[in-house]
């Protein structure tokens, strides 16, 4: 019997011929990602660091992104502590405020490679499954222990196979696909599992795959992964990474899966997750007309160039509705600059968008664009939890960039497949 992606990579990384679901294995992840929480993490092990040092200085990747630039003295001290830690312990993969959202930057810097294990003290660390990495989120204490010891444990997960057919229609995005899946299986539908995508993945760009893998945690998944194909190899080549410098690991064709799902991409339509759960998904058609105060384009889910481009095409020459506001955060400095060069930023700004610096921004309610009671926001982010954007009496709806852009013109939820005037 063949093995799943998760079983194969965990066997290889733990030095065993084969492993089975439920088994505990010990691995040394290639990378450990931390962000603004680096300060709290190293604060837990101040004395230990003096005694034991950092086990593998090439493992940590520190990217400051959650509250950037610093909003107050406390967050400024967090950033300062992270900088000093990186300098003291020779952490070369340190990226300061302004580089962008950690998950985007880690990929752009070529640190997410196929066949590697990446853990991070951020739940959306599952994003690197887009590139065939086994990546998942952990808590701060585990990140601290990894700094000291360089290894951790995993329970080999059960796996779910998602087979795709067809191609996404125009103005329907990878976000609509992943929200549809989450709506179908629920916020815990893939709890502890490795979700492995098979079939017609070739029409999905790396950015599409990133959006899907990123939302893996919203269905409870440990890992959400794609096979390594020509699209992956071309993306990595564009970063200067030759295919001889990584190992590809993928599921056997006869692998045994706990569950199997299939989706026809051509049948996917624009959807929206209603408050306050990500699996509260309805079609845009069935939800049309809901009025919003704020529209938010950005985050590690949908702040990439293709997202901004899709929104700019819709907003070009149009205006954000009166009494509504549009907030735009490019996912990284690189995305920001490419969007400037392409004229995207100009289109978004002229339409009424407020352009903020690359970072997580209002996604977690820490600063920049928090909501007031009774307000509604239509967002490209990954979570619509109560209180998420700073106010428990506000409502957050989640959708793809096309739906957010088209709706921003109307001031209310509209189907992006229809022209908005």
């Amino acid at each position, binding site marked *: 019997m063949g093995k799943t992606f998760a079983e194969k990579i965990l066997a290889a990384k733990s030095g065993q011929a084969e492993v089975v679901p439920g088994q505990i294995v010990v691995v040394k992840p290639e990378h450990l990602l931390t962000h603004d929480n680096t300060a709290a993490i190293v604060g837990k092990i101040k004395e230990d660091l003096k005694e034991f040092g950092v086990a593998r200085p090439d493992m940590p990747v520190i990217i400051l992104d959650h509250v950037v630039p610093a909003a107050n003295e406390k967050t400024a001290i967090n950033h300062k502590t992270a900088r000093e830690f990186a300098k003291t312990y020779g952490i070369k993969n340190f990226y300061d405020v302004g580089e962008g959202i950690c998950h985007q930057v880690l990929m752009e810097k070529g640190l997410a490679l196929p066949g590697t294990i990446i853990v991070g003290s951020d739940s959306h660390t599952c994003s690197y499954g887009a590139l065939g990495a086994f990546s998942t989120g952990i808590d701060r204490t585990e990140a601290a222990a990894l700094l000291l010891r360089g290894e951790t444990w995993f329970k080999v997960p059960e796996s779910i196979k998602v087979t795709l057919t067809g191609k996404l229609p125009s103005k329907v995005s990878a976000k609509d696909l992943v929200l549809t899946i989450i709506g179908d299986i629920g916020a815990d539908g893939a*709890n502890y599992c490795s979700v492995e995508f098979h079939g017609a993945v070739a029409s999905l760009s790396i950015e599409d795959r990133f959006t899907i893998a990123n939302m893996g945690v919203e269905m*409870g998944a440990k890992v959400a992964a794609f096979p390594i194909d020509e699209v992956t190899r071309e993306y990595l080549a564009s970063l200067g990474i030759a295919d001889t410098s990584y190992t590809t690991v993928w599921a056997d064709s006869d692998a045994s899966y706990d569950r199997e799902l299939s989706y026809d991409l051509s049948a996917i339509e624009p959807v929206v997750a209603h408050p306050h759960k990500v699996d509260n998904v309805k079609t845009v058609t069935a939800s049309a007309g809901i009025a919003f105060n704020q529209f938010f384009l950005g985050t590690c889910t949908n702040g990439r160039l293709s997202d901004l481009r899709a929104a700019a095409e819709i907003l070009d020459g149009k205006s954000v509705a009166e009494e509504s506001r549009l907030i735009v955060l490019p996912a990284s400095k690189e995305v920001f600059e490419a969007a400037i060069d392409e004229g995207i930023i100009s289109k978004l700004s002229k339409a009424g968008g407020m352009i903020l610096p690359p970072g997580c921004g209002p996604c977690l*309610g820490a600063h920049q664009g928090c909501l007031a009671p009774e307000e509604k926001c239509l967002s490209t982010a990954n979570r619509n939890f109560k209180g998420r954007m700073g106010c428990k009496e506000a409502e957050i709806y989640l959708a793809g960039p096309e739906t957010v852009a088209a709706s921003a013109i109307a001031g209310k939820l509209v189907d992006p497949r229809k022209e908005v005037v």
Partner: protein
Amino acid sequence: MKVWKYGDDINTDMLFPGKYTYSCSTPEEIRPHLLEDLDPDFSGAVQEGDLLFAGKNFGCGSSREQPVLGLKDVGIKAIVARSYARIFYRAAINQGLLLIQCSEAIDAFKEGDAVNLDIEGGTISIGESTFSFPKLPPQILEISKAGGLLQYTREKLRNA
């Protein structure tokens, strides 16, 4: 001993709002905001030894560990739920906070029922009924026994 009972999909934003994630890290800073958007009465009224009951997918969402640190700090003896989100589950192991997965106990519990927990024996009694719950695998139990992951890590490094 009081049982605090909540529903399904209780996420980490409800347990500890994201807006405080980068300004509150210590138990003293966490406590006033614990469960703030879920149950504003909780933080002022919770007592050492209380239990928290919940439905499925408890602790879903962010990797922030303030919910675990906070619940441990206020003396929650154990959480009993139908299921847990995986990062929360790991975080609880890492702090030595006991998580019990037992749908039967959740089904059986009615307000006012006496609840007795036998941690060593792996059973929980609700009124007249007793249910068993699975224990952690032995390798993982070692982490809890050491007093949490950092203590476990220190022991491993010193004995290396």
